[in-house]
């Protein structure tokens, strides 16, 4: 038989890396993109936001020691305020004991509160993904589960998330469980709907083919339907990353004594818009990092997709 050319051209090469069987190595990129280069319009839009913010700060100015829009110099100066959110230790005294705030104490305060919020976000996100995707697959799989859970799940999806915060506060108080449950709820409800949609879009002939090869219904579901639906979950999983950060900050308003949400709550109480803005920048930075990590992971997991 004459050789046929594989379809992917430049990214398809012969290699003898896996024992005696040659395999195709694929870098997965297709046509080369100029990775890491920003579009000129993106740079322009970024500079416009920076310029607009700074202009608003100058124009609106200061009213009785309160700046509606803090300038960038105010935001960077606000860093030292994080020293007030450090409990003391590691060479930096707590300002609550009367010690002077230091940059080291501020760094520890920022690091500690960011770390706690990130841990809550990751834990809540994980629980939400498992619950939401699991519930979606269960409902798509079982007629009984579909009958029992579809209505309450869709009802929960319709609920305004932020309006649920007081309810969670009443149920869980200021416990860790309340924060995690709220984040998981926000993520899970989003992914539940996306999962059901993704499963519904898996072509029927995949299941028929698997069954005709002797796969049991469970094997077909686990080894065929789930991976076939996975690329469609990718967008939802990424969306849920940003969503989980928002939910974490909102949940930390529920009387938490540590975390970036707690910092925001205190800053708003004292009308420290500079601390609010700096905390917002920190959240954007870490949300972007987690988004990029999640995106890279999901790209790797779906590297087979066309």
């Amino acid at each position, binding site marked *: 038989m004459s050789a046929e*050319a594989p*379809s992917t051209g430049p990214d398809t090469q012969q290699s003898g890396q896996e024992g005696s069987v*040659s395999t*195709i190595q694929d870098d997965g990129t297709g046509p080369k993109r100029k990775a890491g280069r920003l579009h000129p319009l993106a740079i322009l839009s970024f500079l416009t936001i920076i310029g607009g913010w700074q202009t608003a700060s100058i124009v609106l100015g200061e009213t009785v020691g309160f700046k509606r829009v803090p300038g960038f110099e105010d935001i960077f100066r606000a860093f030292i305020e994080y020293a007030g959110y450090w409990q003391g230790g590691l060479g930096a005294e707590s300002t609550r004991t009367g010690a002077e705030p230091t940059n080291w104490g501020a760094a520890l305060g920022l690091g500690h509160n960011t770390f706690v919020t990130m841990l809550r976000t990751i834990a809540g996100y994980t629980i939400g993904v498992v619950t939401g995707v699991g519930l979606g697959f269960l409902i798509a799989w079982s007629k009984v589960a579909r009958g029992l859970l579809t209505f309450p799940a869709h009802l929960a999806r319709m609920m305004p998330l932020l309006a649920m915060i007081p309810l969670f506060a009443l149920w869980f108080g200021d416990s860790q469980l309340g924060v995690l449950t709220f984040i998981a709820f926000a993520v899970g409800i989003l992914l539940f709907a996306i999962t059901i949609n993704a499963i519904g879009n898996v072509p029927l002939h*995949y299941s028929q083919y*698997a069954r005709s*090869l*002797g796969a*049991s219904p469970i094997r077909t579901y686990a080894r065929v339907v789930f991976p076939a639906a996975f690329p469609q979950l990718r967008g939802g999983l990424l969306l849920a990353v940003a969503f989980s950060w928002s939910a974490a900050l909102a949940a930390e308003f529920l009387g938490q004594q540590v975390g970036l949400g707690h910092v925001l709550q205190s800053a708003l109480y004292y009308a420290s818009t500079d601390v609010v803005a700096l905390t917002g920048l920190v959240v954007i930075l870490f949300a972007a990092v987690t988004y990029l990590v999640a995106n890279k992971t999901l790209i790797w997991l779906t590297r087979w997709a066309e």
Partner: protein
Amino acid sequence: MQEIDSVGDMAQIDPGATDAGRVHSTGSRTTTPRTSSPPAIELRSVTKTFVLESGEELTAVRDASLTVARGEFVCVVGPSGHGKSTLLNLIAGFIEPTNGEISVNGRPVEGPGPDRGVVFQRDTLFLWRRVAANISFGLEARGVPKPERKATVERYLKIVGLEDFAGAWPRQLSGGMRRRVAIAAVFANEPDVFLMDEPFVGLDYLRRAQLHKVLLDLWAEGGHRAVFMITHDVDEALALGDRILVVKDGRIVEDVAVALPRPRSTYMITSEEASAIRRRVVLHFGDLEIA
């Protein structure tokens, strides 16, 4: 069931034989094999009616009776939307007949199963499994031990000429290569019956010819199990089939033996004998005004 056209030259196939000498004229309307073992595929007065969303009923297969002997290669032709794929889906067990009975090797069909391997018109390769893993899917599902699985996969990769692509993702293969993997995956599972729904659609003439050879090699490798293949290409049916069925308006309206020796060349399928069969088949599509 609508009466089959004159079948004076309708032949009965002797299972297992591979040359033209195995074709016996019977002059009968039935194609029941003379073996004592049950036929590979048997349909008895099968009807399939779908109820549309509008409430209307659509009968896709009407009172179809058919016997396919073990080792027989049956090609099914007919206009689009006249029930060919429904017939295949019924045999595969993907849908249930409204009336009638279907059995494979004497066992009633009750849903899909590994005794009936299906090659779909659409690409069914599991994109998330590499080529070798695609071929071993059915073997894994049936609990075949790993060493045996590995040997089987290697053997079939060699037969279809893709031994260098065991570790490739399906998306890295051309359309023809993907077809070969799909066919190998089904044959490696060693079903009793192969059901193929236009497996070579969209491929050019040369690729088709190559895949015909691959298919026939696999058929021979598998001990000439029964094949039930839908095609729109009468030449393909002439090149591959022991019999050609014509399905029109949900009925099997023609069942003609292809008494050409194997292997078949281009000359053979353009011979007078083949042309007579072709004429007999295509006239069921109507006397079309071509230009």
